[in-house]
């Protein structure tokens, strides 16, 4: 065994436990410190790399803080109008059925202006993956109330807290989507702890597999934070998320495909 005498000696290929995904470009993330978007990007990049999907991936990024996602991932991408990503993805997948197609959308994008596109793509059972970053707020435009802002939560357009009597109720769109026959896998995850990151990454890997088998729409909600919009430090934001967001948006699977779908498919033939 080699005797370790200094830093240089530790940096050996056999000692490598973590490396930056080759799918991430050199461009520095534009996200605020502690924001969940960066972590979500990173694990998506890792899955694309580990599954060898770069040559077959077409991603769609939204209007929202992640609008510049194409700067950070070394894959082919389309930038969509606010809320319309599932419509783009529908056409991409229909025209290039053997590609891995995903959308990555914020809560304002997916659950307010894009509600129709989201529900109908899911209801048609488009063979795409929808990654839904729910931070309960409009991050990009400076912290306005989102369709997902929880009751009592303060935002710049609900400065005294969300009053559901006048401002309406938060929309649990993931629960809605899980009811639709077109979805095959609907899950709610988070990326605020190493354990949560591992689970979310596993969920993305499952979705890749289901898409390969043309099983229908996969929908992964990532309950996330927005330290800037929430006016909190990153640590406070994650704590607040656990204590408040998770009560309303409980993490876990909402819908999983029946066991061994490949086998049952063969049986039908």
């Amino acid at each position, binding site marked *: 065994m080699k005797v370790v005498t200094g830093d240089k000696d530790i940096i050996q290929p056999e000692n490598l436990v973590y490396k930056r995904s080759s799918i991430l470009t050199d461009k520095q993330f534009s996200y605020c410190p502690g924001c969940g978007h960066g972590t979500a990007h990173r694990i998506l990049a890792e899955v694309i790399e580990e599954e060898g999907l770069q040559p077959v991936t077409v991603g769609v990024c939204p209007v929202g803080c992640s609008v*510049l996602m194409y700067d950070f*991932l070394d894959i*082919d*991408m389309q*930038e969509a109008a606010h809320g319309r990503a599932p*419509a783009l993805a529908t*056409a*991409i997948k229909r025209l290039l059925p053997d590609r891995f197609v995903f959308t990555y959308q914020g809560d304002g994008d997916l659950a307010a202006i894009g509600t129709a596109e989201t529900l*109908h793509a899911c209801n048609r059972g488009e063979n795409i993956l929808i990654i839904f970053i729910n931070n309960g707020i409009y991050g990009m435009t400076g912290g306005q109330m989102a369709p997902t802002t929880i009751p009592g939560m303060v935002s710049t357009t609900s400065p005294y807290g969300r009053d559901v009597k006048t401002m309406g109720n938060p929309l649990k769109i993931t629960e809605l989507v899980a009811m639709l026959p077109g979805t095959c896998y609907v899950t709610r995850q988070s990326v605020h702890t190493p354990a949560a990151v591992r689970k979310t990454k596993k969920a993305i890997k499952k979705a890749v597999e289901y898409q390969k088998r043309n099983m229908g729409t996969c929908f992964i909600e990532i309950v996330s934070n927005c330290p800037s919009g929430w006016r909190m430090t990153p640590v406070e934001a994650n704590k607040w998320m656990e204590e408040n967001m998770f009560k309303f948006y409980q993490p876990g699977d909402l819908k999983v495909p029946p066991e061994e779908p490949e086998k049952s498919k063969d049986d039908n033939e």
Partner: protein
Amino acid sequence: MEKELRLMKGNEAIAEAAIRAGVDAYFGYPITPQSEILEYLMEANPYEKTGMVVLQAESEPAAINMVYGGAACGKKVMTTSSSPGISLMQEGISYIAGAELPCLIVNVVRGGPGLGTIQPSQSDYFQACKGGGHGDYHLLVLAPASVQEMADFVELAFDLAFKYRNPVMILSDGAIGQMMEKVYLKPYREREKTLPEWATTGKPPTRERNIITSLNLDPYLHEKHNQKIQAKYREMEKNEVRFEEFQTEDAEYLFVAYGTSARVCQKAVQLARTEGIKAGLIRPITLYPFPSVRINELAGKMKHIISVEMSAGQMVEDVRLAVNGQTEVTHFGRMGGVIPTPEEVLEDLKSKI
């Protein structure tokens, strides 16, 4: 293979021509007076024959954004609608122009504003030719005046769309969409197998990643992008102006009219000639780019020019710009879905003599 002769509605001709032109996908939402296009395509089921995807979208915004997604894959993709639906598509059309994507949008125009009427109209000229959505952009606009041109312009539209990486609009109206005429159909053309190098199809190791976006946070870069697309419009203005003239050689009075109005004016010219009035017609086939140069040349010889449109007078502004004060230009038209008769047009002409 021989050309095939059929009796068809304008809407059906567009649908059949799209299949034959090797279009990759159609996304649409029903609206009168053009629902036959989607119905025809669903019945023809071209996916089985050519692989063409046909999908009924949940709305016009969804349809135009499906067009964006498909066009960004380098595919030949189209949608069709009528006035209220086209209004809903404007955000998407602006994104498509901004991202420089080729596609075909057909507007079978009905009378507005609002829900208006389902009868034919030409009141969407401004929307089609002056941008329509936000930002500085143009569609290349083709105006068919017959069922034959409804069919022929599909292939032409895609050729132009891919040549300039710009959306093309066929600006038709309810009359041309609904009327039946004989039409020669071209033989089936295979769908394109090779995709343009800018298409988002998955990044192979042999090239950089492809990104389709209309976003530029740096205003100076974005100004450059705007200059680039403006340069394309100047090229179109140089190369793509199309028009047709009818009895202009000795004319002293000129009608300018497109689409259904041009058909009415052709008859009005004949009626005028039987009464010894030397009338002629210029029919713009491209509304953008507009045949300004030719109208300017003709204007010097004319005692009066009338822009005949089924609207309150929209194209007349472009005619006046082209004429540049050489002679008087007025507008004649009916609104709200009413088609003027040749006799009415002739009466208006006589009132100017």
